[in-house]
């Protein structure tokens, strides 16, 4: 890694960060001028904490030792300009922030002050190192405005005047993230620190944001320190990769080398856990990406949902939706929100249906309707032949017994004041007559079934890891041997290695118990791994529905194609091909 001539922009050596317990242990890595270095790792690996140490933005409880040296100049003899950032003064950090290293953070909604316009906030960044005590004078009003508008344009926002006058709540996540990038560019920094810049965004928006960052790096030579857990994002953008595990750097290599010849066992494991979309490999083998995508443009752009006839429909499907519509009445004066519109869908016994779509597409709404948690505004919902709207009390009760639900965030779906055992036992207590002892035995059996130590029954949710908690939620959902399992983004809150094991568990349980499953996810690769059939949802409608392999490898609807094309693959070469193919289609 030291083959670059001259001093790296940022050299981190033996960095230790501790909040009472150590968060980063003896980490050493570098950020080269004009290159993208990715800090990769799972939650708690110390990657974000390391990046915040560079900006001096750690909370006061942190102790930092070691060395972070910033070299503004790589000419020999320019050593005197070097700045040590560990233990630097508040003034030093203030001089560095924004002007040399700027920050693009994870949650675009929370990163903006809700009561100031975006224009004001970006203007503040422009002026941060101007005026009294600084070399350059402050810009006057009109210069400032045109500078702000220019920055928004550069970050790919088309209507800079409107964006500048808007408050954060009036814009979408993608717009806010672009605007954050604009703000990060305000002082022409040497490097941008991007902390999970696309994690909160939909896959198509993510692709656009990554394009913006790549363009800036190419045009301005801005280095990027990219913090991410997503190997697809790494493959798409990074030049160098630093893999962190439990506060330690386990591997530091150029991106091509890391993906083709990972050396550390943890890197190997990490890469192996990433679910991959077969479609991408199909693209690589044989049909070139460009031909594959441009061939599609011949078909009509917005044809009606393509439903494959080859889905076999037995007499009584587990779930049947007929023209289901859900309309949330808008707040006074606002237009009503159509969350589902004329949805027809069936799930056969034992079928795993993957429901994919971006945020706001209505997929979670549909899951709630099928789970009986939300009444549709129109249409019919039949679960096991029972019409949920006109079901008797007993029928509804029976249906609840045969439907299990697993939600996204196990931390908030398990009662924090109940022991794990009590949570898992609750469905048994409500729907069966078995006595205490039998119930305890069943709970122990269920915990074993989801690969947890039965002794955990005495513990409380906060004592468990995220993966363990989701296993508990799954145990609770299958406690009554359901005929239908609804899983709403069950692995989205989990680290990738944990996700892999939870998915394997779900597959195994499904094979054993034979329940039908509605699997909601925004991650196409995850869906491909678990689902027999896939339905793609956009703006409340199903636009494509068919066997998983067909839908994801040969998508017919334009929107499905866009989704498949936008999902980054954990392979730098393949990802470049796909990216170029995507651009070719756009151009």
């Amino acid at each position, binding site marked *: 890694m030291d083959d670059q001539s001259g001093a790296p922009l940022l050299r981190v050596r033996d960095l230790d960060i501790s909040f009472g317990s150590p968060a980063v242990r003896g980490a050493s890595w570098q950020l080269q001028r004009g290159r993208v270095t990715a800090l990769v790792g799972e939650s708690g690996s110390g990657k974000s904490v390391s990046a915040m140490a560079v900006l001096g933005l750690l909370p006061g409880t942190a102790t930092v030792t070691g060395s972070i040296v910033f070299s503004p100049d790589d000419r020999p003899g320019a050593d005197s300009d070097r700045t040590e950032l560990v233990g630097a003064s508040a003034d030093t950090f*203030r001089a560095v922030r924004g002007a040399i290293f700027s*920050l693009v953070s994870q949650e675009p909604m929370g990163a903006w*002050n*809700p*009561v100031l316009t975006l224009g004001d906030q970006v203007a503040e960044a422009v002026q941060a190192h101007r005026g009294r005590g600084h070399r350059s004078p402050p810009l006057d009003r009109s210069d400032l405005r045109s500078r702000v508008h220019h920055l928004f344009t550069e970050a790919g926002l088309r209507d800079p005047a409107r964006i500048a006058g808007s408050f954060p709540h009036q814009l979408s996540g993608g717009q806010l993230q672009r605007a954050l990038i604009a703000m990060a560019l305000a002082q022409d920094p040497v490097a941008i620190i991007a902390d999970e810049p696309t994690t909160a965004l939909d896959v198509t928006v993510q692709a656009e944001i990554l394009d913006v960052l790549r363009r800036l790096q190419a045009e301005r030579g801005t280095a990027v320190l990219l913090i991410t857990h997503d190997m697809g994002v790494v493959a798409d953008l990074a030049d160098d990769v630093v893999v962190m595990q439990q506060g330690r750097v386990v591997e530091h290599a150029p991106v091509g080398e890391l993906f083709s010849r990972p050396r550390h066992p943890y890197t190997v494991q990490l890469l192996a856990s990433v679910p991959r979309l077969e479609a991408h490999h199909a693209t690589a083998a044989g049909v070139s990406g460009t031909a594959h995508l441009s061939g599609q443009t011949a078909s009509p752009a917005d044809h009606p949902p393509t439903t494959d006839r080859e889905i076999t429909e037995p007499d009584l499907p587990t779930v049947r939706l007929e023209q289901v519509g859900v309309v949330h009445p808008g707040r006074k004066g606002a237009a009503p929100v159509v969350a589902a519109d004329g949805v027809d869908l069936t799930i056969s016994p034992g079928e795993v249906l993957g429901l994919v779509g971006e945020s706001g597409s209505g997929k979670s709404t549909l899951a709630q309707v099928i789970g009986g948690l939300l009444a549709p505004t129109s249409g019919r919902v039949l679960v096991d032949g029972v019409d949920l709207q006109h079901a008797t009390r007993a029928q509804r009760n029976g249906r609840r017994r045969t439907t299990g639900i697993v939600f996204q965030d196990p931390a908030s779906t398990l009662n924090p004041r109940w022991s794990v055992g009590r949570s898992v036992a609750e469905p048994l207590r409500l729907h069966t007559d078995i006595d205490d002892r039998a119930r305890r035995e069943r709970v122990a059996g269920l915990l074993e079934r989801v690969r947890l130590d039965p002794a955990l029954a005495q513990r409380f949710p906060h004592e468990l890891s995220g993966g363990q908690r989701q296993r508990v939620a799954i145990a609770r959902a299958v406690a009554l041997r359901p005929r239908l399992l609804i899983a709403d983004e069950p692995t989205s809150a989990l680290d990738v290695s944990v996700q892999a094991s939870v998915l394997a568990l779900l597959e195994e349980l499904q094979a054993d118990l034979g329940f039908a499953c509605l699997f909601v996810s925004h991650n196409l690769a995850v869906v491909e791994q678990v689902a027999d059939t896939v339905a793609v949802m956009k703006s409340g409608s199903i636009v494509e529905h068919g066997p998983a392999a067909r839908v994801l490898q040969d998508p017919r609807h334009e929107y499905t194609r866009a989704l498949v094309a936008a999902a980054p693959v954990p392979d730098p070469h393949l990802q470049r091909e796909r990216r170029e193919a995507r651009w070719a289609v756009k151009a």
Partner: protein
Amino acid sequence: MKLARFLLGRIASLVFVLLVVSLLTYAVFVLLPADPAQLACGKPCTPERLQTAREFMQLDHPWFQQWFDFVRGIFTGRTFGTGGAQFTCPAPCLGYSFRLNAPVTELILGRFPVTASIALGAAVLWLLAGVASGVVAALRHGTVIDRGLMVAAITGVSAPSYLVGLLGILLFGFTLDMVPVSGYVPFRESPVDWVWHLVLPWVVLALLNAAIYTRITRGQMLEALSSDYVRTARAKGIGESRVVTRHALRNVAIPITTLFALDLGGLLGGAVITERVFSIAGLGALLMDAVGSTDVPLLVGVTVFTAAIIVAANLAVDVVYSLLDPRVRVGRP
């Protein structure tokens, strides 16, 4: 346009609330055993005199008609009695106190500047002191300063205002002889004496609220300072004082302002204990007087007036809130 419609809607609901309040007040006082005519009739009270008094006070009407006359009187004024024994109560008439022989509106307006002086002065004090010490405590989180301020705040919340008031009078009024111990001088007569007479009540009244505001400001500030948007602001490289005022405090101001308008509105209805301790004749004292002497028209009038101020404070909160917080701004998408 939308703002005008919003305001009209709010004012309409304000009027409705006041009607309900006055109706309930009337209903309650009719159910009370006290008969104002009995009290006014004096001794010896013959049935004839009692009847005359009743008719004079218009107590012979059914109670809902009395209420209707009361509401109408606010707009048109009222006249009691006939011929030589005639009392007029000009609009806006909130009733007529036969005991004090004066229109209730006049009585209230005579006392309101006193109460307003106490309330506004105290409000300015507690807002400044509470927010300032809350911000300092948050910025010095976990230090001796923070802990000291929090101990002071808990003491302030716990100390009853009559105790603090009496101790203040004892120390500053008698022992040190720095301030007058009671009474009130109107601002127009002598601004210096006005302040001099009110400074102790202000401090006593402000103490409790300042303590509450310190705690709330501190909590809100700590939350704001650990928020993502404050981190973003710091990452721009702007100075810490600007981060604190423009980003953190600007957001903290929203809940504080809401609370402040409501507290001030409540206080404008009369600071009963403080007025009693410092022997100041404000609205609170008037109300206590009315209760003590079963002066029903005065009670009803003061109650409705107080309710009006509190409802108006709520309206002010809505307007100010929408000015401070763009997320609830009226007339915007």
